């Protein structure tokens, strides 16, 4: 049961990573990051059954931080969009060599 949950969490996490690596749309990127966070949450919850209740406590922390992060992140995305009418990250590469 725990093993199955962990495998599912790993799959979800990998999908998130893959999304971050290959997609360029800022919104999609956000979704992928949320996916990774929730994959980790799933792993915490699954493991808390075997190890102890602390894992579930951690999940609440992660959710709270993720909510805050989503709020800030979406605000940034909106201001980016207002600035240049697009959220394609290909156009935002000022911080390079």
């Amino acid at each position, binding site marked *: 049961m725990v093993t199955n949950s962990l495998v599912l969490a790993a799959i979800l996490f990998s999908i998130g990573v893959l999304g971050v690596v290959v997609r360029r749309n800022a919104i999609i990127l956000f979704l992928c990051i949320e996916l990774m966070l929730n994959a980790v949450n799933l792993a915490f919850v699954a493991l808390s059954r075997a190890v102890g209740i602390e894992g579930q406590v951690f999940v609440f922390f992660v959710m709270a931080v993720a909510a805050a992060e989503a709020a800030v992140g979406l605000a940034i995305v909106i201001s980016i969009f207002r600035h240049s009418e697009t959220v394609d990250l290909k156009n935002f*590469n*000022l*911080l390079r060599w």
Partner: protein
Amino acid sequence: MHHFEPFLLGAIVLLPLVGFAVNGLTAFLAPERKTIPTVVGPAVLALAFVIALTNFVRMLGAELHEPIVRSYWSWMPVGSLQIDAALQLDQLSMLMTLIVTGVGTLIHIFSVGYMKADPGYARYFAYLNLFVFFMLVLVLGASFPLMFVGWEGVGLCSYLLIGFWYKERKNADAGKKAFIVNRIGDFGFIVAMMLIFSNLGTLDYVEVFDAAPAAFAYGGGVITAITLFLFLGATGKSAQIPLYVWLPDAMAGPTPVSALIHAATMVTAGVYMVARAGVLFALAPVSQVVVAGVGALTALFAATIGLAQYDIKKVLAYSTVSQLGYMFIGVGVGAFAAGVFHLMTHAFFKALLFLGSGAVIHAMHEAFHHTHKDWDPQDMRNMGGLRKYMPVTFWTMWIATLAIAGVWPFAGFFSKDEIIWQAAAHAVGPFAGWYKAIWAIALLAAVLTAFYMTRMMVMTFHGENRTGAAEREHLHEVPAVMWVPLAVLAVLSVVGGWVNVPHAIADLPVLGWIPTSEWLHEWLHPITEHADEIMAANLPALAEAAPLGGGEAFWAITSFAIAVAVIAIAFRIVGSRQYRPAVESPEPVGLARLLYNKWYIDEIYDAVVVRPVVNASKALWRFVDQGIIDGTVNGFGYASRALGWVGSRLQTGQLNTYAFAVAIGVLILLGFVAF
């Protein structure tokens, strides 16, 4: 006989430094103000001379066997090397101080007239005062390093004053030449100091000369090396073969500078140094014969060049080199008092000759200046017949000429004759043959001296005037501020030799009216006695007769007769020649051409030493410095830049790339943990 305490010893040295400070500030703040340098420049020197004279008079009445050393502060306390800033007053440094300040005062006064119209007036006196300060440090310092400070200081002032009119390339080059050639000699001085220190553990004169006879074997390798390195230093400063080449070029400076620095005082520093280190040289017979031999060769060689020069200052420059050679014969054979004696008389008559030539050049320059003629005011072919226009200069310069030619009873007769005689008398021991040759060369050089000096006088003052009709009217005697120093020096050139009349001459019938007084010998006896003892213990007794027979008196009369005869012959030969102004004169041919071009020594040095050094430096610059060293340093720069470029390509600015890198990194870490 009373106890002797030096009186204001430090003030003698410090006064010229004060003068330097005052004149230097004037040169910076108000260069057009001429009153301050006119007063301060000569006054500090005169005051120093008066103090020195006071000390001298008090010293005369005292029995002084040991040098008086006054230590002011500890200058260089490094481990076992303890050097104090200390002055040493003894008979030798007293005499040198009198010469430096006395002749220096006269030349400062002369300079007031000579440099009157020069825009660098204050700067000139600042340099001149600074020179005297360093010269006094040189002669009064109580240790080799302190002498070296003065040694370098006078070199600096010499450089500054040779290139005084630095706006002309030629003058600046002459200054550099003097400086660079002297570096070679200074290298020898430094090595000698290190050798002395590593063998004796001290550099103070008193301790070195006390310890040397016990520490070094007579004729040993170390002492020979020390003295030869010291002499290398002397050949640089005192313009001996092979390092004499800078002195003739040094005539680019103002003429009073040539008189003070490049004739009377600085160039005799090497002679002073050998006399000061007499104990060391007496322990090294090979070095002694080298010193005397180089001196003799220089005396002859420079005299030959002097025969064919047309520039009045060049004649005097080669004459100075030649006379310095005589001094080295004197100190080289071990007759230190004789060398110092000639140093003193030479200071009188050569300063007089240079100042006289300065007066002539001054008059010629003014005459040409009036009519805007661009002839060379120093070329003797443009002169002739100046006796009518410049009687004081004419007579005083003839006195100096008779003195340098060795005519009795002028100063040079006694000093030069003594050196020649001492070379003959010291022709004993293992190097007797060499000393005999040195004696013969010295005699021959004396003949040439009489000839070229007479030639110079005849070309300048006798015969028809060749200056030009319009210019002739503007020729006139120099003002009193310039001819009075000439007159004083002329008196000294007559009587200066009387302080040391050998007994052998005083016993002669007609020539013996000057009272016998080997005063200078006795005066310097406390300095020279240690060296004399060493030589007496290791060499056979001095010869009674010259190599060709005859004693001291015989050769004194002979050389007197030769000098008079040569002057008369030269007067006839040169007087009968028809000289034409320089612009109309043909180029010299044959031997005269060779001598006029100074045996092409400068060209040879240029080809053998200067060019190879310059070319090697260029090669080192191009290949080693620019190629290897710069290449390595720049290579590191290029490599890090290239590496940075490669690394910077990772910074794409795209989030995806970073995320990919992080993911790969995590995978690798996981791989490490798992397997």
